[in-house]
């Protein structure tokens, strides 16, 4: 019985650690605020919840488990709310997402010069660490949708 308990909780701990790692990597590597907060949100909820569930499996049926459930519920509601509040504040303050479609009126009258400039900007960001391929694709998609 104990080996089953240990195996399950170890799997959950490793899963939580993997989510923490992914969240940390995303926080460093993703291009702008909204994508980064998306990565941080994973760390906040999924990773900590998995770790708490792993601790619950270790604790068995006891008062500790009840306390862990309460902590888990609290985190389950507060972390996404905090993420939402921060993202909402940024949106209200006027921060535009990295992949946001360009304003429609200027996009139709776009000259070839501007398009070249945009591609250059995309390349520069690509050098800075952002994936250049999806950026160009997303911009093309945004233009075609306009």
């Amino acid at each position, binding site marked *: 019985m104990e080996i089953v308990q240990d195996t399950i909780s170890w799997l959950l701990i490793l899963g939580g650690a993997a989510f923490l790692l992914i969240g940390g990597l995303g926080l460093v590597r993703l291009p702008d605020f909204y994508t980064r907060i998306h990565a941080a949100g994973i760390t906040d909820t999924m990773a900590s919840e998995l770790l708490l569930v792993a601790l619950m499996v270790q604790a068995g049926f006891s008062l500790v488990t009840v306390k862990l459930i309460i902590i888990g519920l*609290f985190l389950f*509601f*507060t972390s996404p*709310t905090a993420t*939402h*509040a921060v993202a*909402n504040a940024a949106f*209200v303050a006027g921060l535009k997402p990295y992949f946001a479609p360009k304003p429609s009126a200027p996009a139709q009258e776009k000259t070839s010069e501007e398009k070249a400039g945009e591609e250059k900007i995309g390349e520069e960001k690509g050098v800075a660490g952002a994936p250049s391929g999806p950026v160009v694709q997303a911009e093309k998609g945004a233009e075609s949708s306009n």
Partner: protein
Amino acid sequence: MKHHLVLRVVTKVLIPPILLFALYVQFHGDFGPGGGFQAGVIFAAAFILYALVFGLETARRVVPQGTLRALVAGGLLLYATVGVVSMLLGDNFLNYSVLRPDATAGQHLGILVIELGVGITVAAVMIAIFFSFAGRPPTIKDEDW
């Protein structure tokens, strides 16, 4: 204020458990970690959260200035009263053992009442500090940020 819907709903759900947890920390303090100061801060945190989400004026209506002042003084008065009562019962200031015929029961009662006084004062002072900071007229206009 429409975009604060999520915050408002979550705050409404969370404030009662926060207050309940503050009371748990307050009255469980002699068996486990906790005590008056921590409980007071948690209790005040619930009110500060309420003021942050629902606005300062709404929170001021929940805890009026006069009540707050009375609570700040009342908690300290409760603390001092325990000391004076134990003096009147013929022992040193704040020696709880004489509060009850049984010394251990007296110590239990004394520490509980004293921690209650500490908790009330700390909660009221924290709320008062927050109110006085948040209630200051802004020195920078909103459009100058």
